[in-house]
């Protein structure tokens, strides 16, 4: 069985984001690039399924990003993925959800998979719509937000979280699965894993390799970024030292009254 996990490389989510007032662009200097945290859960799910399936199951990570970020994929290899495929091409710049999903789907058709696992959201763009678009382009069932998954006799059985509880869902392979954060905390890379990752392959792909019928990048994108700006500033508010419970409660109650919230 071949499990492919898509991984996005994003600026460290724990770093404060700020906009350069002159260029109006996100300041990336001094901010480390990491695996999208949601994708680490997807990779953890793939590794767990591989361990349970045993045999000749392999885990391949796939990423699409600028060439300079390629080595960041070693982190996924260090966690335990067997190999990586890296799609990079200047022609992808400016891709939106539609173009991203289309380009990824063409690459994934070439790579081939029995199970495709995708993180539930990305930490930067955060549309959450790529998995659904990807499944449509690939023509496979789309089962999202899994907290448990098992594979038996070519059938995928998933326990998935919903907005109001959970569901058990089954579908045939090949299929696309996205993971919830309750699937299991991503493992740390062991020293052996980190050393081993240096020897693993990161196979390069370009747009010429995957064959496209439709335009991608900013030409193919259906959306056009017009502006981006920091949110309206939120000034530091008041601090009140409460002598006791009643005084503290009164300070909050007065504030709520002033703001017409009670």
């Amino acid at each position, binding site marked *: 069985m071949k499990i492919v996990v898509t991984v996005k490389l994003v600026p460290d989510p724990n770093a404060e984001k700020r906009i350069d007032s002159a260029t109006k662009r996100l300041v990336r200097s001094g901010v480390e690039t990491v695996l999208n*945290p949601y994708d680490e859960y997807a990779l953890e799910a793939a590794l767990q399924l591989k361990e349970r399936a045993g045999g000749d199951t392999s885990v391949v990570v796939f990423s699409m990003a600028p060439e300079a970020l390629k080595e960041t994929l070693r982190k996924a290899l260090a966690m335990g993925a067997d190999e990586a495929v890296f799609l990079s091409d200047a022609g992808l710049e400016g891709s939106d959800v539609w173009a991203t999903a289309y380009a990824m789907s063409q690459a994934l058709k070439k790579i081939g998979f029995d199970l495709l696992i995708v993180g539930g959201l990305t930490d930067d*763009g955060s549309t959450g719509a790529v998995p659904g678009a990807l499944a449509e382009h690939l023509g496979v069932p789309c089962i999202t937000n899994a907290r448990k998954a098992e594979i038996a006799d070519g059938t995928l059985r998933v326990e998935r979280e919903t907005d109001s509880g959970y569901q058990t869902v089954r579908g045939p392979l090949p299929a696309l699965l996205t993971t919830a954060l309750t699937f299991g905390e991503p493992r740390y890379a062991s020293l052996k894993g980190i050393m081993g990752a240096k020897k693993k392959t990161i196979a390069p792909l370009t747009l010429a390799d995957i064959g496209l019928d439709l335009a991608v990048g900013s030409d193919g994108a*259906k959306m056009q970024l017009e502006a981006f700006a920091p949110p309206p500033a939120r000034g530091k508010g008041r601090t009140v030292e409460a002598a006791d419970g009643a005084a503290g409660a009164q300070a909050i109650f007065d504030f709520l009254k002033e703001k017409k919230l*009670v």
Partner: protein
Amino acid sequence: MKNVIVYVEHRRGETRKVTFEMATEARTLADALGGQAHAVIVGPGATTLAEQVKTYPLNGVYVNDDPDLDTYLLDPAVDYVEAAARAIGPSLILIPNTLSGRDLAGRLAARLGAGIGADVTEFKIENGTVACVSPKMGGALITTCAIKPAEYGIATVRPNAFAAAAGGAGATMQTLEKPSGKPYAAVIEEDVEEGSGELALEEAPVVVAGGRGLGGPEPFDTLLKPLAHALGGAVGASRAAADAGWVPYSLQIGQTGKTVTPNLYIAVGISGAIQHKVGMRSSGAIVAINKDAAAAIAEFSDLLVVGDAFKIVPELTRLVEAAKA
């Protein structure tokens, strides 16, 4: 893109406030684009719910009570909305920004060759072009993205961002014929509802959230819940509290949890790490109660009260209850 279609997410005829927010906004958008506003409601309970949706300023409501919607995971919904979009013609499709809303949006985008504006909090229309305003990176950036001229466009709409107002001449209701497509692949074997009766965190007008400072699971029930109920809100938590197992992850607010935008956010015993901040910083008013005057949350709270939450919260609950009586 002239018309506007609202996808109504519901569970056996029960929907959330965002449906009515979208129905109201759909009218404004359709008028600006010179087209019509419609809603699509499919699955058991659709016809009953349509009577309620009809009281909003729409032209038409398309319904089908098809039980397949409860049997198969989303596949039938994708087919129905696609069929409605093709029947209604070039349109902007509004979908709530929820777990399954995002899935539906992505799948329709691929089928209709449509762009997606995600987590939209405001629309701008100029010369027939729709632009979507969305907070990104947990509110660190506000982007404006235009949908390039095309037959279809999609927007996932953030709950609580638009006003809901009933009214209008009354929409006509019609049956949406079941589309014939390929067989549905993903079968729902079991569907369990949990925590019913509690207000959905994302839609609550008031959120009272607790963190590490609460020291254990009990205060969420004994301290925070009474205050949340008194204020007509819901209880949330920081990642530290969810990681400690004090509350389920479904209550976690922040980077790896939910994003909330209530009118009032009360943070109790939460230090205010960036992980938490990005999930709540767009709230209307922010009040924090913390032992530590130097806690990071002071930097983005309208009011920080330094003191003992175990003494302050019950007093505050009493004051709010008394004001209501």
